[in-house]
């Protein structure tokens, strides 16, 4: 049981990292990104390709390369979609992640296709007991989460972060105020994508295996729901929301196991229904998330609870 809880804490930490990444892009700057899993895949593949498939870099070098490459990918996507607003951006980024998955599936020489990449190294994997490896990795993810969290906190409270929030609330006013909105948006998108790619790389090294099928939009949905449930705009909300989503996904297993008289497929259906329903309930009854952003927007004071 401890081993399981540790493993789920690792997953929650990785989801939390990605939620922090999304928070920079969406929560702070107001650009919705439904292609998050695409950046996660870029990160995971970059590190896997460099540490096992095409070269044998050490893991830390792979992870750094992954962070840089996904940051660049983020900047490129941000430039291409610069003129798009809200719902258009949502659908285009969703498409981006599907294109990443298609490339990973079809460029077999480069990515090994749908076979995926296995034997991705992890620190001390194989040298220590699986339970110890789990604990070591939890330590790494926890440290990574803490560092990224602190960086994101600094970003949020810095003058830079205030510009981002100003862009979120009204980019035209910000532009008139003389800020290069496009540059800020591109940078924010790149930072968020880099954090997501960083998490993706850590994800690959933890599971030792990645495949295109693992990077489906469902994961984006979980991250978006994490951030929304936790409190869009706040870094603490991103982390807590991710833990909550993993708790929902895992807790439901134990609940549905107690329902008598259902076929296996019905049990699975009930479980997925429950996860979705719980998330909807959170959105409904804590619309600002569990950690609402304290700096209420001046434009809409009537919506502050």
């Amino acid at each position, binding site marked *: 049981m401890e081993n399981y809880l540790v493993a789920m804490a690792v997953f929650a930490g990785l989801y939390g990292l990605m939620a922090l990444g999304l928070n920079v892009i969406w929560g702070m700057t107001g650009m919705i990104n439904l292609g998050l899993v695409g950046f996660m895949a870029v990160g995971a593949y970059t590190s896997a390709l460099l540490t096992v498939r095409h070269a044998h870099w050490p893991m830390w070098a792979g992870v750094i390369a992954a962070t840089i490459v996904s940051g660049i990918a983020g900047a490129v996507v941000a430039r291409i979609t610069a003129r798009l607003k809200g719902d258009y951006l949502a659908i285009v980024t969703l498409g981006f992640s599907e294109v990443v998955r298609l490339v990973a599936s079809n460029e077999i020489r480069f990515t090994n296709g749908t076979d995926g990449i296995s034997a991705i190294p992890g620190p001390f994997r194989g040298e220590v007991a699986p339970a110890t490896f789990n604990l070591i990795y939890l330590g790494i993810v926890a440290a990574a989460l803490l560092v990224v969290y602190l960086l994101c906190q600094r970003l949020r409270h810095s003058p830079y972060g205030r510009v981002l929030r100003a862009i979120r609330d009204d980019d035209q006013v910000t532009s008139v105020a003389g800020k290069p909105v496009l540059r800020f948006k591109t940078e924010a998108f790149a930072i968020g994508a880099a954090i997501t790619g960083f998490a993706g790389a850590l994800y690959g090294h933890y599971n030792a295996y990645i495949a295109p*099928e*693992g990077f*489906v939009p469902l994961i984006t949905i979980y991250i978006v729901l994490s951030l929304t449930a936790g409190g869009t705009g706040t870094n603490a909300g991103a982390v807590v929301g991710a833990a909550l989503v993993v708790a929902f996904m895992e807790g439901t297993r134990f609940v549905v196991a107690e329902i008598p008289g259902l076929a296996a497929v019905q*049990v699975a259906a009930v479980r997925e229904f429950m996860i979705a329903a719980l998330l909807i309930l959170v959105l409904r009854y804590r619309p600002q998330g569990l950690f609402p952003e304290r700096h209420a927007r001046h434009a809409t004071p009537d919506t502050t609870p």
Partner: protein
Amino acid sequence: MTFLATRRAVTAGLALSPLFAPSVLRAQGEPIRLGTLMPLTGAGGPYGPSMRKAVEGVVESVNSAGGIGGRRIQLYGEDSQTNPDAAVRAARKLIDVDRVSAIMGTWASAVTTAVAPLAWESRTMLFTVSGADSITQLPHRGYIIRTQPNSTLQITKLSEFLGQQGAKRIFILAAQTPFALSNKEILEREMPKYGGQVLGQTIYDREKTVFRSEVDQALRARPDYIFLNGYTPDVTILLRELFRAGWTGGKVAPAYAINQRLLDSLPADVTNGAVTWAPSPDIESPAFKRLQALLGTNDPDPYSCQTNDHAALAALAIAKAGAATGDAIRENVRKIAQGAGERVTEVTEGLRLLAAGREINYAGASGACDFTDNGDILTCPFRYEQAEGAKLKTIRIS
């Protein structure tokens, strides 16, 4: 009639559930813990439920015959969601919380490969139906048994059959899977032995809903046989399109793609003549007949046949070892599945013989269940069937 099928499933679930209820189990000492990790949602969804029922059938018959050495089997099940991310979390739960000694029925190759390291690191046996050749090449130290034939076996058998049918010009329409390319390469290598050739292959995205132009690409090559290397949902669309396009030549697909459900969902005109092939026990095999009765269909799909055997192999290996651990299964699975022992096709019969100290050689609903050292099935007879009037008729076994 489909409504009735659903009702039956519900009643079956009701009838089974008391057997798995913990209160009943605790009466008899520590239960033997086995796990299933099947695709109940996601792209593998059409296959998972029946695969699970095939396992439940074995567990039920073992338990009602008094269990293994007086211990009942307790079955834990999780949904792989046909997604490696979800499957890894589910496997962690099966291994670390439920402490199962075997995980049965992983379907998608990506799921199996993702779960495999967890299995061998925790000394848990993994029984899979995945087709990717790479799976048994993983450094699994014997913790993987794969009942699905690998590309070489599968395609060599197909080539043999196509050669005998006089097929000369073959075109492949394949879903993007880990075995699409290797299947093509093996077919290209084998067909010249029979004077045939592979004209080309179009790989399609199986999440699309229309494949008209892909079918046109196939027809333009002027083949005499088309090999549909996909899964039930996409092969349904391809068969319909081939019929519309006026195709009258040969069509062949894996038996897991053209199964009874596909035949029920399409008019017979569309499916008539389609050939399938799969590893097979002999047609009169009692194991196969029992599975037919259990699943209420004349043609249990190959994956359900295989998971039925996964459960039987795990149970028999545990009985042989006298211990319910992953290591015990790993050490003993070949001792009960192959060799000179008495041929057995039913799990309770096998348990009885093992209890009497006899050697056994299990052959189940999916075939002989003889395995190589790295966990692949050894060569075995294949069953070739042809659709006629929405039913599959066996044309030969060889």
